[in-house]
């Protein structure tokens, strides 16, 4: 049992249910519902895209492209319940495509960089972090990139769509669950070692 530090977890509705509710309302003519859908899903898309190691500006570009694609293609989404998964899958594909395009450039190890050099807006948040969370951050920074990516994507998915994750991460569907467990074990081990870099 971990204490719930999330402030937005007040409602009983998961982001997935809120997203499909807003999507249905928008489709039946409630224009304002689109804002709710964007507000609900954008933070989740942020974490999904950042899991691919993109810098903040690139992450923003990928997310914007995801939303524009959604406006163009929303009629192809047959099941409103699937709107959150559709957006996440689309964002992941965009993030993966960007990674391929940026291969020639040296990828910035943004995760570690960001931890070492907190920018102004997160400095305050960092100052408030308890020791436990910063140890966790240090531990996560020591596990391999593949594990970090998998954990971050899965952590922000309510109903992981293993089929599409497996394509992006290039691993068989059946191994996602066991891999997740192994990656979490790596984090635990690193925590016990003190998570020092």
């Amino acid at each position: 049992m971990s204490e719930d530090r999330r402030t937005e977890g007040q409602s009983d509705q998961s982001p997935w249910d809120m997203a499909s509710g807003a999507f249905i309302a928008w489709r039946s003519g409630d224009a304002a519902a689109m804002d709710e859908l964007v507000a609900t899903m954008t933070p989740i898309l942020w974490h999904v895209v950042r899991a691919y190691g993109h810098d903040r500006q690139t992450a923003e570009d990928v997310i914007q492209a995801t939303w524009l694609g959604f406006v163009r293609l929303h009629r192809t989404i047959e099941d409103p319940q699937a709107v959150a998964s559709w957006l996440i899958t689309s964002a992941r594909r965009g993030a993966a495509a960007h990674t391929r395009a940026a291969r020639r450039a040296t990828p910035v190890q943004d995760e570690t960089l960001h931890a070492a050099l907190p920018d102004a807006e997160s400095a305050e948040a960092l100052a408030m972090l308890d020791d436990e969370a910063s140890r966790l951050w240090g531990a996560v920074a020591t596990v391999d990139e593949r594990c970090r990516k998998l954990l971050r994507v899965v952590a922000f998915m309510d109903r992981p769509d293993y089929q599409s994750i497996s394509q992006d991460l290039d691993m068989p569907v059946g191994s996602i669950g066991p891999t997740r467990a192994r990656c979490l074990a790596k984090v635990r081990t690193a925590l016990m070692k003190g998570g020092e870099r």
Partner: protein
Amino acid sequence: MTDGDAALLEELRDMWMTYDPPPPGLVATMIAAVAAADLDAEWEMLTLVRDSRDEPAAQVRGLATSRILYFTAAEGWSLDAELDDGQVRGQLLDFDGDMGAVEIVVDTTDGQSWTTALDEVGFFTLGAEPTGSVRFTVRDSGRSATSRWIEL
């Protein structure tokens, strides 16, 4: 997933939300981007320009029971539809694309839905008796235009 794994994953999620939150203006930026894109997509709207219900009955062709609707899209094509006695018939006019790839969808607020293709000159016929309010959608590969709900 074990309880321990679920709890750790939850802690990780909290950690990422704290350490690497979305930029403060991100949601507002995306809302604006979507709103702008939505405006661009307005050409996709199917606008009702003529409704027989708003006209003197004398001008209505054929049976007084029929309801004639005429829509235009900003792209310049139009859709003619007639609801009469268990049938929805109509024609797509001045459409530049491939008629064979076009589908006409009729939805109602009562949850009914019918879909049909066009013949080579753009005519369609559906055996359908819509109730409630009705909405027309003209769809071809990847694009679609939908009307507002029209009370029957």
